[in-house]
């Protein structure tokens, strides 16, 4: 009985102290699934950062040893070896770095273009909005994967071009999400009062509007990173991704496909890695959305 009261008081005092970010974190912490997702994503990020500490790229990742080729999963090679005798486990872990870097940079690219574009459409409205939205409609009517293929074959096959291709195909959805978020904030009273005391338009957008749309956009970004990982691996799978011998996950899958009859583990493990990371990002994104949604707060 007494304990309960104490607990309630401590919750109340915590609540009083929490900032907006702290509040979101507090609510996110209660969502077990999202926390597991966060932990897995953090683990993958760590692997990506320290990949070159764990493995030597030239000998263990890119270098081959034909004597060890196509060994089935065993203690020494937990995921087996590929047709060049390279350890799949090592390549998979190292590939985290490629897949994550590609996904994050392509999302960053689309944010850099899509966010200002969407914000301007939502804030300015009028002709600019109309024309920009029609153009985005055109981009949106080409499916992402086909757009990616067209762009990579246009620019040539390289990691940077892969990032551009994926980032470009994500601009339209990101811009329209931002636009919708800005539209809801644009006509609020505090924006009106900011305008009435003579704050410049630019400052209104940057200081008053964008921060208030951030929660929506942040959720979008988390989910977009998940999409970008799948998109990158799809393009690599079609042979349009990173140049060999980079161990990007889609490239591993694509290479494994040639041995689908005699060494199916080469196909199964890379796909599982993609699935686990994307699943974690999706769960985390959903958790963030719930944590940031005032309607969900009880």
């Amino acid at each position, binding site marked *: 009985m007494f304990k309960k009261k104490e607990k309630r008081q401590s919750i109340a005092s915590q609540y009083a102290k929490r900032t907006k970010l702290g509040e979101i974190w507090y609510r996110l912490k209660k969502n077990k699934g999202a926390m597991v997702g966060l932990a897995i994503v953090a683990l993958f990020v760590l692997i990506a950062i320290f990949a070159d500490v764990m493995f030597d790229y030239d000998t263990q990742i890119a270098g081959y040893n034909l004597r060890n080729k196509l060994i089935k999963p065993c203690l020494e090679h937990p995921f087996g070896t590929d047709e060049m005798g390279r350890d799949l486990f090592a390549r998979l872990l190292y590939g985290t770095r490629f897949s994550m870097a590609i996904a994050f940079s392509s999302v960053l690219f689309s944010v850099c273009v899509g966010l200002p574009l969407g914000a301007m459409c939502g804030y300015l409205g009028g002709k600019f909005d109309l024309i920009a939205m029609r153009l985005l409609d055109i981009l949106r009517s080409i499916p992402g994967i086909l757009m990616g293929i*067209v762009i990579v074959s246009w620019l*040539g096959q390289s990691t940077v071009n892969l990032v551009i291709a994926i980032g470009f195909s994500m601009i339209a959805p990101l811009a329209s999400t931002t636009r919708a978020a800005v539209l809801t904030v644009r006509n609020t009273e505090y924006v009106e009062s900011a305008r009435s005391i003579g704050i410049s338009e630019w400052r209104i957008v940057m200081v008053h509007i964008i921060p208030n749309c951030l929660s929506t956009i942040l959720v979008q970004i988390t989910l977009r990173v998940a999409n970008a990982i799948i998109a990158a691996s799809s393009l690599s799978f079609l042979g349009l991704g990173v140049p060999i011998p980079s161990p990007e996950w889609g490239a591993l899958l694509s290479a494994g496909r040639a041995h689908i009859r005699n060494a199916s583990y080469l196909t199964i493990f890379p*796909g599982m890695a993609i699935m686990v990371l*994307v699943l974690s990002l999706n769960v985390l994104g959903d958790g963030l959305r719930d944590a940031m949604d005032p309607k969900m707060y009880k």
Partner: protein
Amino acid sequence: MLQYIWKRLLLLIPVVLGVSLFIFLAVNAASGDYVDSLNTDDMTKEEIIAIRAHYGLDKPLLVRYGHYMLDLLHGNLGKSYSTGLPVFEMFMSKIGNTLYLTIGASLVCWILAIPLGIFAAQHQGTIFDNAASVLGVLGLSIPNFWLGLVLIIVFAQYLRILPSGGAETAASVILPAITLGTGQMAVLMRTTRSTMVDCLSQDYLRTARAKGVAEKRVINLHALRNALIPIINITLTQFAASLAGAALTETVFSWPGVGKMIIDGINQRDTPVVCGSLILKCIIISLTMLLIDLLFVAVDPRVRTSFVTVKGGKKENV
């Protein structure tokens, strides 16, 4: 009403223009043209030049685009460089296969997603609901082409009960349909669940129950009917998207459909095929969107009276 339909059809024109311009320029600006993708080792320089001239590849890009658009105005999508057949004919010969696959995938998707979504909504907050939502996120997270490969490994290699690719036998459609259908299932299931949750808390359901209507009837007749609009919306959007070419699934299973044709076309720099198929694809998608909006008018009296069109929901990229 008619005026509205006309307006929507007219809006197609800038989309077609934009798509064709973008694709035409991108495919043509790519390093190497169709002739480079041929084996030209034993041809003389003059022969290569003659081939380029034959396809008009020696002219500047904008001139070629102009010619292409002029032909398009006459309803002519051009001929494929590699097969010499008219693009429209090629598209039509492949669309049947794609339609077949799409219907199969949609059946898989509906049979799994709608009952599961309703079930999850009915048992909101229970372990069933959580399991269904996990299944939903899982469906969104599995790379489609990988699922296809895993299905091939399990059913074609180990169990040897289904063919791994092609479209020779009737059973060939099963694996690609499951692959494509489960990918779409996640989105439809989530939509069904969330709209059903909204519907289930409505007052008229309480009234119906109070009147003594059987629970099954309450769910199937009263609730589901009102939840149908978003469900139809997602279903048709997905149908149109995969009809327009589920490129990856078709590639994994060597399914001779539109998506595979477009990917092959891009690899061979066969501009007319890529451009023409994407234009037809855009038209299919836009017409489906129009159909969805019109269907809303027919299904939902609220839309009919106010005639405020409900914008098509989320677009799914396959």
